[in-house]
């Protein structure tokens, strides 16, 4: 149980305004997606929420406490995996657990269910260079889930997966989340993914990055991803979001679609 308040947040890099005046409340155990074209500042926003980058103005509060540095109960799944090349699959998954003070053996044992969860049993002793991009992404996901955070920040966590694995992982994430609800802030390129997973979808546009709309997704929980994709309301939502994204002159080159990127 934890909620996030983003208050009038702005970020500049020199003369570049990444985004301005972002306000967002994410409720306890709510699943919120952020959908927007590349460059609108989604990654930067998540890094500020995670406490690894300073905002230029405004604040992020978790349960009313202002974020200045990373919190042990909040974790970020990075867009570019960031596995330690010198650690095996199991030790990468166990990394957060190790930093919480578990012994090597205890951390490995606690990590094992998460290795299985992402379908990497049997590859525990391999090094990241021996894995495909999709497998590396799954290791990053397992590493974040393994510490059982209250708040999960995810930056296009399925971006490196092929369409099929991507849908399987979405189903898996829905299951994990239903069994053990967490507060999730999920960045994606893909409209479909945002609809299937979220309670609400935050629509962003770029130059400068800003929130243009927040759309509630009406489907009941627990969800069945396949049923949702064939629901007529799905097509309507999809068209509505697509129209919003298309107003952004830069959205054309990133063309969010069914499988995204």
């Amino acid at each position: 149980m934890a909620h996030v308040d983003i208050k009038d947040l702005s970020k500049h890099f020199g003369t570049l305004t990444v985004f301005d005046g972002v306000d967002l409340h994410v409720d306890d155990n709510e699943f919120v997606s952020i959908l927007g074209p590349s460059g609108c500042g989604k990654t930067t926003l998540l890094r500020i929420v995670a406490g690894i980058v300073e905002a230029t103005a405004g604040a992020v509060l978790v349960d009313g406490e202002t974020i200045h540095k990373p919190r042990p109960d909040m974790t970020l799944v990075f867009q570019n995996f960031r596995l330690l090349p010198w650690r095996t699959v199991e030790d990468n998954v166990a990394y957060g657990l190790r930093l919480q003070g578990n012994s090597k053996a205890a951390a490995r044992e606690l990590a094992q269910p998460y290795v299985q969860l992402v379908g990497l049993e049997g590859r525990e002793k391999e090094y990241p260079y021996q894995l495909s991009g999709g497998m590396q992404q799954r290791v990053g996901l397992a590493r974040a889930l393994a510490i059982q955070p209250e708040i999960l920040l995810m930056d296009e966590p399925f971006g490196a997966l092929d369409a099929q694995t991507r849908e399987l992982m979405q189903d898996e994430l829905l299951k994990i989340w239903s069994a053990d609800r967490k507060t999730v802030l999920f960045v994606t390129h893909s409209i479909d993914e945002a609809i299937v997973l979220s309670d609400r979808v935050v629509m962003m546009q770029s130059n400068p990055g800003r929130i243009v709309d927040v759309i509630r997704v009406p489907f009941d929980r627990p969800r069945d991803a396949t049923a949702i994709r064939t629901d007529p309301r799905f097509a309507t939502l999809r068209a509505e979001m697509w129209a919003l994204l298309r107003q952004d002159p830069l959205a054309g080159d990133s063309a969010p679609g069914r499988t995204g990127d």
Partner: protein
Amino acid sequence: MTDRELSARAVVGLRVGFALVVLGAWYLVALTMGDLFLAPPHAVLASLGRSVESGEFLKYLGPTAYILAIGAGLGVVTGVPAGLLIGRIRWLYFLTEAPINIFYTTPLVALIPFILVIVGFNYQSKILIVFLFTVLPVVINTSSGVRTVDADLVELSRSFCATEWTVWRDVIVPGSLPAIVTGLRLGLIHALVGAVLADFYAGASGFGYLIILYSNRFDIAGALGPVLVLAATGTAIAALLKSAQRRLSPWQGAP
């Protein structure tokens, strides 16, 4: 790519073949030009054997091994930590960048006479010379290794609330390990050069002095013996560190 496709046997064959060609060329030059110009390999080995038997070899090896052990040891023990700190602490890097580069690009040989005048013709100055030859490549490689450690991984570690010490242990040291080993390899090989030069200039003892003694007698076979031993030592150090690196960094895959 083609390097990787060479089998281990082909590599050994290639190396042995090349060694035979060099040996053959050596014989050819030695036998056509006469042994005042270049002694043939068997004469060098025979002379080396006599030198070992008479105890002369060990007598001259001892002092050089001594200055090497202390000078290079100090160079490594201070150079690695210094390089780590310089690589990680920004103001320290900017403070030391210019002096280190000036020092590194100055041929150290040119400083040897000054060191001898200031410190004296003794073991201390020889150790100092070896130390200087070792420490610079170690510091430079280590600090550049630290500076090129993936900042994303440092951030990852931080995002799991790692302390600075944990970031060092988990990211910075393992990430710069290959560069550190390269620094050690260069440093130790420079140490050999430094030791021989120290013997040349400060004289009266050591391997370098033995080479000079034989050269002054125009005994080319005798002078080449210690040179061969030095070459073999350098090669052994390089090979040893290469295999250590492979064992220490299994994550890099096949070399």
